[in-house]
């Protein structure tokens, strides 16, 4: 059964992809995977199985061993256009000595500000700054806007990384355990903001989540990596039959 009409182009399309760091030893093999606009897909599985490596490969940071990867209409090794892909790494990738605003502005600039050709530097943009401040406020960090990242708690830093991606307004968000270190109340708040964004902007969210209960709660589809292969699980209550 088709989940989406065939006219809709998937944001991510993987065909016979093997990923890993060594040629002869693939970590994960994915026969076929498509993720469509408006979808929230979670990847779960035991640690060390290759969940984060899969995310990095989709982000274009690691070369796949074999197979074809198309992200936002561009096939690897071509990258998605500027600002189309938002990435929250497991260790967040924040500039620790810079302020919250500076970090969130990186995402906002990627999404709303375009560099001068050949020079590669952006001029200041009011739109980008407005988006950054909105994203910071939505994560409840308005009082920390000028604080350097190194002075924030682990949970606050995680919210800054999420705000950076929301300020970017990307077509695809790749998030690696972006809800860990957060208390239940904050998880609800962050999750609500992210899902609202994904559903309203018709973008997609691919999230690696260690906690399988939370993964089932947030995702439309759950992929479990087990024994080096991606197996689809259909989640409740938004259960839909999907072929992978």
């Amino acid at each position, binding site marked *: 059964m088709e989940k989406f009409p065939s006219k809709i182009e998937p944001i991510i399309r993987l065909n016979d992809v093997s990923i890993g760091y060594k040629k002869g030893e693939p970590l994960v093999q994915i026969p076929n995977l498509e993720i469509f606009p408006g979808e929230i897909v979670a990847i779960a599985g035991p640690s060390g199985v290759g969940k984060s490596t899969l995310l990095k490969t989709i982000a274009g940071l690691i070369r796949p061993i074999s197979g074809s990867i198309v992200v936002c209409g561009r096939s690897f090794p071509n990258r998605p256009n500027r600002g189309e*892909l938002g990435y929250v*790494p497991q260790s967040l990738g924040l500039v620790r000595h810079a302020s919250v605003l500076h970090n969130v502005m990186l995402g906002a600039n*990627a999404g709303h500000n375009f560099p001068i050709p050949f020079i590669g530097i952006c001029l200041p943009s009011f739109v980008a700054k407005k988006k950054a401040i909105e994203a910071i406020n939505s994560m409840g960090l308005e009082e920390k806007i000028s604080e350097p990242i190194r002075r924030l708690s682990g949970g606050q830093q995680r919210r800054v990384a999420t705000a950076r991606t929301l300020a970017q307004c990307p077509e695809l968000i790749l998030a690696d355990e972006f809800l860990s270190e957060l208390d239940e109340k904050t998880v609800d708040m962050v999750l609500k903001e992210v899902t609202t964004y994904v559903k309203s902007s018709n973008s997609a969210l691919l999230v690696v989540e260690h906690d399988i209960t939370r993964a089932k709660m947030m995702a439309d589809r759950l992929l479990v990596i087990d024994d080096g292969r991606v197996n689809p699980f259909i989640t409740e209550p938004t259960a839909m039959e999907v072929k992978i």
Partner: protein
Amino acid sequence: MISFDLPRKLLGSFFPPLRSWLGICVLIFLSSIIIFDGMINDWGRASQGLGNLVKFFNESLWPPDWSVLEPQAYPVCTVYPTFMDFTCSTAWIGMVETLKIAFVSTVFGAIISIPLSLLASRNLGFRRKIEDSINLLLVASPITFFLSEVLSYLPRFFLAAFRSLPSIIWAIFFVILVGFGPLAGVLAMTVYTVGYLGKLQYEAIEGMTKTPLDACEAMGLTKFEIAFKVVIPECANDLISQAIFMFEYNFRHGTVIGIVGAGGIGYYINLYLKFLQYDKVIAYLIIIFIVVLIIDFISIKARSYFTDEIALNRPSWKSIFIPFSMNKR
């Protein structure tokens, strides 16, 4: 990937005591003693050294001649109030000139070395960018491959070339080019600063954590944005502390380059060395030592603004200048 334990395992298979790191350290130390012994013919000369030092110290060095802090006879000192007339002394004039040379050359050197070190760092991917651009412009061939290799290594080549000569040799070179005085000093120190500071900077950049670069690369930020908005703020602590260290280094070497006529306090040290007035030389050296100590203390305070650990417990001026035990009391 080479394991950290590989040398230990390899050496241990030949000689069992070398299975431990302690054994390897003892071996390295003993080999250095043997090499040193091979270079020295007459150990008796070393035993005479201390006696010579005591004699030289008593006869020529001590007490220092503090007349170097008195105003020069010509030009006539017109400074008012009179207790400030030490600012007309050779020690003060030379010291201020050395400080100026060190400051200007550190600033110029840092400005030139930052772009070079960004281009030289392998983790930022500028090298791949150069190769891709050349391959786009020209048809891929062994010549274009060679050209891209050469161009991508150019920043490292320049940094290595500037660093290969000590600052005193650069000073001699610039004294020949532009004549005696502080201009030659500034040029010599700037060139050396670019080479030395650039090396420290690209090592700091290559040592930074990769995730901010990955996140920004995935977002699609340009190399320039990543360099100036991610790399420089992230490495700010290292870059500032290296620049302060370089200022200290330039000040100390500024005293040496004066000897070849490139300005600063070294000019006066050289002058009094020629006249064998060692008591005046030791006075200059004590002044240099005090200024180096003051710069070092100031740099502790300046660097504390950029370190994580000290941020919440920043040292006060009192705690820097007064020894810990006295400060506690």
